[in-house]
């Protein structure tokens, strides 16, 4: 497996939901070993893009590729869903945990891709589940019912299920939603440490600036309807370049300035209404 080749690739990808073109002409290479953040305004199609990458939604146009276990790029739809689920762990945004599962049982679902459907979870599975829960700080809740968890805890438990899949690629839809500030800072690093390649959608631009190797901005290009037109990748590159003040103004409609933290060597993004910017 080459270290620099893409693990995920999109070529000319478009998506239709119902009668609406949501995405169009998306080309994207995600190299092995990188972390990519996907940013964009509400409703622009970030989750749709992630679902296409995850192989749970077929693009209406174009092609989506994933490297299989031997390192060869193959069209995602040609890879069996079982093999795909051993290559990439996808954690959807909002999940209704509607059954009376215990936290440990829910996280153990992450082992489904690697066990026979009739197998009983053994001690090894229990160890993996515990380790995954430990990584998100919920090891002591393993035998609690899922609905005893708060919103943020539930989010972390679902992340633990993704970790228990032990996949080289992780796709996370808004992983930091509902989390308190400490976990917002910690979770992405926790996941990045455990997955070779990480792709996540995120709406906190300041956090995005510091948490990823690269960012892709999903937006509606000029000439397309600014409210309902299809979106595409309008900027892609190192976070500091992608989130410069002109780009943030253009794609998010706010003024911004990147500053260095006075005590730490890390960039921050200060955001303010447009009129202050011009003043």
């Amino acid at each position, binding site marked *: 497996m080459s270290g620099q080749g893409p693990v995920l690739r999109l070529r000319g990808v478009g998506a239709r939901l119902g009668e609406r073109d949501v995405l169009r002409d998306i080309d994207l290479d995600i190299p092995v070993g990188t972390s990519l953040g996907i940013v964009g305004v509400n409703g622009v199609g970030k989750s749709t893009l992630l*679902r296409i990458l*995850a*192989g*749970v939604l077929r693009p209406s146009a174009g092609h989506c590729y994933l490297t299989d276990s031997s390192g060869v790029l193959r069209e995602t739809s040609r890879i*069996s*869903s*079982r*093999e*795909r*689920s*051993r290559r990439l*762990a*996808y*954690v*959807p945004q909002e*999940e*209704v*945990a*509607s*059954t*009376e*599962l*215990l936290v440990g*049982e*829910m996280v153990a*679902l*992450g082992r*489904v*891709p690697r*066990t*026979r*459907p*009739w*197998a*009983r979870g053994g001690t090894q599975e229990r160890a993996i589940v515990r380790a995954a829960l430990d990584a998100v700080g919920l090891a002591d809740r393993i*035998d*609690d*019912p899922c*609905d*005893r968890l708060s919103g943020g805890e539930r989010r972390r438990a679902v992340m633990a299920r993704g970790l228990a*899949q032990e996949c080289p690629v992780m796709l996370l839809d808004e992983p930091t939603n509902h989390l308190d500030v400490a976990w917002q800072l910690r979770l992405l690093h926790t996941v990045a440490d455990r997955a070779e390649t990480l792709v996540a959608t995120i709406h906190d631009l300041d956090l995005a600036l510091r948490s990823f190797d690269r960012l892709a901005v999903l937006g509606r290009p000029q000439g397309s309807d600014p409210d309902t037109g299809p979106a595409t990748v309008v900027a892609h590159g190192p976070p500091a370049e992608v989130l410069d003040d002109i780009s943030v103004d253009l794609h998010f409609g706010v003024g911004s300035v990147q500053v260095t933290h006075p005590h730490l060597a890390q960039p921050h993004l200060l955001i303010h209404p447009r009129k202050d910017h011009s003043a």
Partner: protein
Amino acid sequence: MSSVSGGNRRVPFVPLVLGLLVASVLSAVVSLAFGSERIPVADVVAAVGDRIQGDAPGKWDVIVWDLRLPRALLALVVGAGLAVAGAGMQTLVRNPLADPFLLGISSGASVGATAAITTGALAGFGIYAVSTGALVGAIGSALLVWLVATAQGGLTPIRLVLSGVVLSSGLSAIASFLVFMSDDPRAANSVMFWMLGSVGGASWEKLWLPAALSLVLGLAMLAMHRWLDALAAGPETAAALGVNVAALRTALFVGLAVLVGLLVAVSGGIGFVGLIVPHAARLLVGATHRVVLPVAALGGGLFLLWVDVLARMVARPQEIPLGVVTGVVGAPLFLLLLGRGRYRFGGEG
């Protein structure tokens, strides 16, 4: 957050299953004593023993071996089958209110059975006329739900629920119409008795097919327990976990339609068992299919066995339909279980 152990007491799985097994065997034997003719339990045991050891049949042989034992076994099979089907249906449509008859199966069966009763159309099948009519009606309605749901985009929960419910109403109306148009004044009565269910017509010949099918499909579902858990968590999650959601839904639909169609054909539309027994099992042992399916099967069988005993004892020598007893006994029993702890299936408690 406060009471961690509040609704979280689970019954250990293995002892519960063993207990239910022992209780089922003992109950099956003891139940043979009850009926329009009271037989001492010792004589029942002797009569069964004679048969098993190949001794000359005693004076209770016909009643115990040919009438009551197949009936008791059919009650176990139908109860187990309905409970497993109910658990499967609740997972397929991800709805706690689902029961085995959701896909219009019982209404379709009642149209078939009613047609057989009121028109005598299937008289050529002799004593199997009503069952045959019911089976044809059940499979037909399941097929119709399938076609409607597929034509509209797939076997998704909401489509299955809606087309099943709508079709059920339509078919019930047709069944009522058939009764209304019938010249036979007793038709309404026999149709109603049939719809509320009975295992009274049991015989050894009628027993083996539902027994084999329930066992095979129950084991098949148990062999996919992890996939069913994933499906219950949601289609997107299941797909992300490598489960072929469309194929699993199709397999589940076909298996449940055939099983429920057959059960309805032999025993009528016994309500409530398939709805409450799976919930009761989840309350006792938790929601993973590996433990829910065996507990629901054994519990459903045991429950229906005693329901049948009650049904033939309460208004002797009259037998009351099983659906009446399952409702009257099942509702308070389930509410009692529900009070045991905060139950969560289907959303926030």
